[in-house]
């Protein structure tokens, strides 16, 4: 019995080694992905191109424009002369914000009245539109404060009212709220969700297409031995990937890591077993490689990024999202990884996550073994 599993493992390993291009890619691709995601995912919104339409042409309106151009968040792209130019600029996406200053801007302010300013924000990318809105509000608030203080002091009054309640925000575990401490550990989870699944997705279905699966059908080997024999070499490859990714996160991206590597590795092994298992399961139930590949791409990549809590916490999801998130292993590993990296908590905090991952793995492999029936035709 043991020799049968061993034989399958040896066969799969040899197949891996004899395709050095694939093995090389299998080891290098996740590192390159990590590099790309780590450096490429620029969430900061800076250098937003802004266009002004100054109908007032007064020193005050120029001062107001300066408050935008002086900030690192906005980049001046020039002055519009009419509404047609504005329309073209915002439609073509060449600018993201247009500021329209009305002709009576400085007159009204000097008289101590409200002055309207019109802002047009490009809403095609909602995330950026939200941030732009925030920046605009901040610049206006600052400008308003200066205006009011000047106005009141010029009339011999003082701007007395302070807001009675202020908020002091503090972030534990990641005091400066650095986004890399948040993104890089999260990427470890998402990458190890879709990547091992892709590695394993073709392993069985490939043999179905080429017909070598009949060798297995005709042999005395049992379904669970096939599944285990095929899973183990790929778990090995994915585990090496995990070690590389971890080292990169700490040494290259310099993410804070105060937890126990041993605990993280335990979790990672279980997690990789789950995701390899998902790939194998897809491979067993598919009839063609092309279908297996598409199912894995769609079934693991999208949920890994959207429903694992990578970007926004699961509590913010609606009911559908919360249900989906319960069905993917990434959800259970995400909290654990972030906790071990940044909170440095011990074993007892994550016992439940480890148990859940174990149960998850047993269910996946159970279904996989059950679906692997020896059949002809």
């Amino acid at each position, binding site marked *: 019995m043991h020799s049968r599993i061993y034989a399958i493992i040896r066969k799969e390993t040899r197949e891996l080694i004899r395709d050095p291009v*694939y093995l090389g*890619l*299998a080891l290098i*691709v996740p590192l390159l*992905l990590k590099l790309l995601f780590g450096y*490429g995912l*620029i969430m900061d*919104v*800076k*250098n937003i191109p802004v266009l002004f339409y100054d109908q007032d042409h007064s020193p005050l309106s120029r001062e107001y424009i300066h408050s935008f151009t002086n900030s690192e968040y906005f*980049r001046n792209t020039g002055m519009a002369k009419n509404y047609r130019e504005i329309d073209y600029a915002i*439609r*073509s996406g060449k600018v*993201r914000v247009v500021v329209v200053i009305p002709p009576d801007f400085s007159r009204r302010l000097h008289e101590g009245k*409200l002055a309207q300013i*019109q*802002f047009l924000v*490009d*809403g*095609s990318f*909602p*995330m950026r539109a*939200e941030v732009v809105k925030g920046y605009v*509000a901040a610049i*206006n608030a600052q400008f308003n404060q200066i*205006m009011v203080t000047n*106005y009141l002091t010029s009339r011999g009054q003082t701007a007395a*009212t302070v*807001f*009675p*309640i202020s908020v*002091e*925000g503090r*972030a534990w575990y990641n005091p400066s*709220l*650095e986004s890399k401490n948040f993104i890089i550990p999260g990427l470890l989870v998402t990458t190890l969700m879709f990547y091992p699944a892709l590695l394993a997705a*073709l392993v069985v279905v*490939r043999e179905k*297409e080429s017909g070598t699966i009949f060798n297995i059908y005709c042999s005395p080997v049992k379904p669970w031995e096939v599944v285990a024999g095929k899973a183990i070499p790929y778990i090995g490859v994915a585990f090496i990937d995990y070690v590389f990714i971890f080292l990169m996160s700490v040494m290259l991206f310099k993410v804070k890591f105060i937890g126990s590597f041993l605990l993280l590795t335990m979790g990672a092994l279980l997690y990789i077993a789950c995701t390899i298992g998902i790939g194998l399961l897809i491979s067993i139930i*598919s009839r063609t*490689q*092309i*279908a297996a590949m*598409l*199912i894995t791409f*769609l079934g693991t990549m*999208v*949920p890994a990024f959207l*429903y694992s809590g990578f*970007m*926004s*916490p699961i*509590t*913010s999801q609606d009911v*559908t*999202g919360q249900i989906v998130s319960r069905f993917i292993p990434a959800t259970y590993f995400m*909290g654990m990884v*972030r*906790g071990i990296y940044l*909170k440095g908590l011990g074993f007892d905090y994550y016992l439940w996550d480890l148990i859940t991952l174990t149960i998850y793995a047993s269910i996946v492999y159970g279904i996989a073994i059950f679906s692997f029936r020896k059949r002809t035709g």
Partner: protein
Amino acid sequence: MWKRMLSLTRKEFSQILRDKALLFILAWAFTGAIYTAGHGMSMEVERFPTVIYDIDKGPLSRELVSRFRMPYFKVLAYLHREEEITQWLDSGKASMAVVIPPDFQRKVSGNTEAKIQVITDGTISMSATIAIAYVAQIASSYSIEVLEKQGMVTRSTFENLPLIDERLRVEFNPNILSSWFTSLLELLNMFTMVSLLLTAAAMVREKEYGTLEQLLASPLRPGEIFMAKIIPTIIIVLSLSFLSIFLVLKPAFGVPIRGSLFLFYSIAAIYVFTMSSLGIAIAVVARNLAQAMMIMLLILAPMLFLSGAWTPPEAMAPWMQWASHISPMRYFIDFGYSVLFKGNGIAYVWQDIVGIMLMGILLFGFSRWWFGRTISK
């Protein structure tokens, strides 16, 4: 020549149509996957798990506490000891703790500044930042109410001051709905992914089966073999994307389709040709589907980042901006949003069209050259 190509195209078609699992996953890609993506990606923070440690317990602080409400905050517990904060945050059950100091009532009624402390879980830095901003809003609106009650300010105070009245309009997406953005983005991503994967797999399969030799022995020329693989992809992707627009985007999310569908579909057909050519190019280089899959992963990931959807072009480093010009996806994302979402005509997107066409010709040419150099010899 046409007849030869047509019969091979027909064979490709029936090969796809006979694979029920493949058809199902393709249909899912253009409906269910887009639906879940439109639903899943919300940047808003909702039901943020919060605990409150009110040391003061006065009427003013209780009133403030009552402002922490759904849908933004879900108050899980009222604490009595400071150590409890650590427990809640460590375990990850709560992501935010609000601490109201013992002198809150006295300071607020005594017209001095009272500080409430907000402790957030920095491991989810993005949501933490947003949550603190929400708390600041609550505090300032409550402050104004308190001031009004104390008679320090009245509504008319604001009308007789030189202030800026911000009139902000968000173009194309007035309510900043992220579902409009993500569902459309997912549709454009599916164009990219499915065209690439489907064509590459169809081409590699001939290599794996050894049927490529048969095709070479036939009077078919390489270009005709390629076109026979590309045409079914174009037809399938275009017809399925109709489903996405009329079954998902419009009815489920109410995404406005403002532009000309005719323009969109004519260029989309060319784009599918371009991405399929990329798939062919990968397939002529790779030896089996597993290799091809790795190469595709390696090409897709940077394309996603350079597409301009996640990292805006203006935030990219110069070398990234330059590199984005060789990615057909960048042109297509720009084109898709411009035409479908903003309702722009050809005058705005002709550069994208040229880019898509050029890349298509280049990739197709490369495949023929490489194929002629290596395989058909």
